[in-house]
């Protein structure tokens, strides 16, 4: 049985191995992912992000439990933690908070290290999520650390993004950081039994009132790609106002309300046409990245290191500008006019 068929047949070891192949970007991983792509597009992708210490893992644990018990949905969890920039290693500890999910064959938890990526997700997280989608998981929860500003990759990947805050972590200021509020579809103030919960909620609410309503709903988060507003004029009902929920995740308090908002957001996405719009934007971004990667590889394969070094030398000696260097490499990668090489500045200065 091929890896693809094994995964589609429900073989969990095959799935785990495929996830590794995809994470490591191996040739077999790429091929299998291509085969499985046709089966993707059905799962609801839920992102959970927030500063460290806000209780994201506990929240994810409770949400997954809820989806299992209430709706018998199959749930996959991808928990991303940062790799050390110095050693490349990582401690992935999110499973510690998810013991309630142990032994349930309708749940699959996979930990990933960011491996140098800066936006909060690993480069291959989107592909890993696709594998779970193809393997038939109804819900894929992606958990990642996000202090708010740079770590907004999650919003590009997920259909519904939940931002988790907690009182007493200096979050009154935290809430004001633009990144967090722009990406949140749902806001959760966890550890709501702690002092300061009122202030945290107030700060979030006042920032939300300033930020909404906007066309954010129809724009693709973080990427300056304009998604066309659907032809049917949106009424106020089509605008999504992020709700704020208080929870005590470790005790399961407030979880049903969050789950309900998730369901409402999903319905909103479908009714407003935003699901399709986001899917399109997301896939376009992915395709764009793959095209760029392929073109750069193809270019590098066509230019020898020697030629490349010669051109760099010319730029360093100011006989060639960077723009001219690029033109030259793209148009005639194998030869450099002798006038340039000899350092004849006058002739080399202008391009024809």
């Amino acid at each position, binding site marked *: 049985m091929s890896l693809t068929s094994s995964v589609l047949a429900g073989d*969990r*070891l095959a799935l*785990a191995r495929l996830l590794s192949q995809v994470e*490591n970007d191996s*040739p077999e991983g790429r091929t299998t992912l291509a085969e499985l792509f046709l089966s993707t597009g059905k799962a609801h992708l839920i992102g959970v992000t927030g500063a460290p210490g806000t209780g994201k893992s506990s929240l994810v644990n409770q949400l997954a439990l809820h989806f299992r018990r209430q709706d018998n949905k199959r749930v996959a969890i991808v928990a991303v933690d940062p790799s050390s920039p110095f050693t490349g*290693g*990582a401690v*992935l500890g999110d499973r510690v908070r998810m013991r309630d999910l142990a032994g349930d064959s309708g749940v699959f938890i996979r*930990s990933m290290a960011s491996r140098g990526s800066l936006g909060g997700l690993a480069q291959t997280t989107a592909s890993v999520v696709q594998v779970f989608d193809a393997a038939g998981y109804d819900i894929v929860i992606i958990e990642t650390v996000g202090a708010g500003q740079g770590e907004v990759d999650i919003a590009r990947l997920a259909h519904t993004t939940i931002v988790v805050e907690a009182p007493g972590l200096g979050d009154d200021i935290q809430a004001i950081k633009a990144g967090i509020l722009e990406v949140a579809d749902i806001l959760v103030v966890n550890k709501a039994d702690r002092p300061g919960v009122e202030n945290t909620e107030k700060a979030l609410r006042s920032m939300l009132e300033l930020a909404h309503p906007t066309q954010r709903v129809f724009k693709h988060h973080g990427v300056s790609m304009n998604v066309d507003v659907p032809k049917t004029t949106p009424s106020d009902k089509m605008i999504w106002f992020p709700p704020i929920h208080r929870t005590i995740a470790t005790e399961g308090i407030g979880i049903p309300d969050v789950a309900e908002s998730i369901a409402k957001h999903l319905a909103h996405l479908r009714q407003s046409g935003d699901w399709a719009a986001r899917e399109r934007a997301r896939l376009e971004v992915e395709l764009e990245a793959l095209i760029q990667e392929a073109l750069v590889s193809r270019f590098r394969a066509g230019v020898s290191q020697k030629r490349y070094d010669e051109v760099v030398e010319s730029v360093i000696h100011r006989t060639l500008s960077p723009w001219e260097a690029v033109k030259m490499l793209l148009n005639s990668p194998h030869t450099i006019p002798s006038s340039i090489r000899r350092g004849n500045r006058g002739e080399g200065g202008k391009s024809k």
Partner: protein
Amino acid sequence: MTESKTSSERIAPEGGSRRIRVLVAKPGLDGHDRGAKVVARALRDAGMEVIYTGLRQTPEMIAEAALQEDVDVVGLSILSGAHMALTPRIMELLKSNGQSNVKVFIGGIIPDEDLYRLKEMGVTGVYGPGASTDDIIRDVKHAMEG
């Protein structure tokens, strides 16, 4: 691709790059996890990806995590003396899940007379109190080269 300094990043036989993935777990009821955390950090500093599952893990939970995370190594921290009861169960579960290639290392309070039997069961390395993390790191990397 260049070999990284720590050699915890390897070229995988199937192509692409790979980091050594280690599950660190405390089976049974003992609640002293400082040693496990020290080892987890040391392995991270050696460039490995450590899935830390914490306290009070049953053999079933350990085997399930090892499978989902597709780990190369399972590290067990056992200070309660229950290693002779827990280890065979864990090894058996790994095998029945199709993961007999996973290398098992055990750290904790292990009397000398049990060392041989543990090795017979297929345990790769056993470390008592005072073992150096450098030795553990070296042995894990060595086990991965095979």
